[in-house]
């Protein structure tokens, strides 16, 4: 099979079947992890991804259709197009089109959060700009079904870190438009950022023994 893309976790192969453009996403073994962690993680994420792909489509978020799940591999429909990340990297962009895409990316996340799905890696690398400027969301391996405000706020945090501020504000407008609980999650995002990373009072150390 022909490899068409390579992510950090998985290889994507072309796998057309019965006239449907399909891709196979296979989570490869990671040599750095012990087997007990690696095997469990790969199959668990594959199952989660297949299940959530189903829910995403049902709540109106364009995403690949899962066709077959086996061990650490999912065969799913090919959504075509290129990632939003590579679209944004282009210097000669129509800013109106970008604003529209960022809003659409936001409203997709709003719909997922409304359905209590936290994506877990919601960055432009996992959003595909499909033909006719339709946006599809992919890569649900780190997702979870959860009511947690914190998990939803982390989705916002990851996106915020990946795009510049103006684009993020378009994104938030889209997010608010499709999700009534948006403000609560946005408030949590600000709280997470305020928490800072250096909050530990009695700092302990991990240098080797003297």
């Amino acid at each position, binding site marked *: 099979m022909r490899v068409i893309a390579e992510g950090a976790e998985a290889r994507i192969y072309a796998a057309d079947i019965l006239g449907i453009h399909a891709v196979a996403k296979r989570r490869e073994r990671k040599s750095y992890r012990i087997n007990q962690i690696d095997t469990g993680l790969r199959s668990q994420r594959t199952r989660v991804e297949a299940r959530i792909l189903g829910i995403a489509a049902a709540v109106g978020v364009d995403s690949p259709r899962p066709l077959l799940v086996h061990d650490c591999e999912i065969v799913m429909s090919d959504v075509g197009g290129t990632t939003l990340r590579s679209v944004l990297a282009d210097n000669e962009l129509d800013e109106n089109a970008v604003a529209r895409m960022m809003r659409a990316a936001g409203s997709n996340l709003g719909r997922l959060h409304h359905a209590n799905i936290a994506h877990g890696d919601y960055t432009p690398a996992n959003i595909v700009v499909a033909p006719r400027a339709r946006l599809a969301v992919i890569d649900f391996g780190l997702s979870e079904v959860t009511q947690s405000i914190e998990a939803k706020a982390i989705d916002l945090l990851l996106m915020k*870190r990946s795009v510049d501020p103006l684009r993020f504000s378009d994104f938030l407008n889209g997010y608010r438009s499709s999700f009534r609980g948006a403000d609560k999650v946005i408030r949590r995002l600000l709280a997470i950022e305020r928490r800072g990373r250096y909050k530990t009072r*009695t*700092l*302990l150390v991990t240098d080797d023994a003297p």
Partner: protein
Amino acid sequence: MPVLGIESSAHTFGVGVVDNGKIIANEKSMYSIGTGGMVPGAVAEFHASNARSTISSALASSGASIKELEAVGYTRGPGLGPCLRVGLLAASTLAARLGVPLIPVNHGVAHIEVAKHVCRMRDPLALYVSGGNSQIVALSSSRPRRYTVYGETLDIGVGNMLDVFARSARLEPAWGSSVAKVARGGSYVEMPYTVKGMDFAFAGLLTKATSLLGGHSTKDVAYSLQETAFSMLCEATERAMLLTGRRELLTCGGVAQSSRLREMLGSMAASHHARFGVADNALNADNGAMIALVAEKIMRSGSGYGRTGINQRDRPDSVIVTW
């Protein structure tokens, strides 16, 4: 002419001397934490009473005379306020007496820069892992250049997590190396694994591991905790490698002394045909040489030293890299 650097952000009072990128002295006094944590006031007192002797022994082993010093660098942060203040006080007194510039240095940037320097890397992705910090960073290509944080811990630093676990398990001394020692030959017990893109979280893992301590052997719990934590770090770093397209990977900071973490990162880097590097343990532990090294770079770049003072939460991405 040589530059002297003082590190005092946590338990170590370190003094290093660098001359033209060459480390010619690296001395330290270390506050011993035993099985407890550390009380900032007590550590600061320890630093204050060891400052003079550590500076003298660094100068003596460097072979340089105090009058030759061209500048004095010190750690601005992040770290414990009382400890940082002792370093600043010692450095500013020395600089004023010699009439040379006083140069503040970010602790995390110093860890990264010294590793980059000794590994002879040009533009690596860095996994900086210490007690309070766990970050994946690389220099931005846009100007002004800064270290961009691609991923980091969403709660506690990996080092802190290992230390707290070590205390709960009554390991002595209560830090990461003891966890590594007891973990040898353990078998895996299931642990929560939390990665969000290039970020990760350790609090849930710590809670679970601590709660298993009664029912399972310390060996098995320590082993599973360590394997899980390092796998998480490796996975997040791998995602950042692909995103940034870097061909060099380094790890630095106290936890970078772990041979298991090095082995895992090395294997991950090799699978992407990237070069992996790590500095000697003496440079991964807190030390003055890295502060001297960056102070010298800042001085040679000739573009100002930044505001003198301390900042307990000084972030690496707030530093403009002028060198």
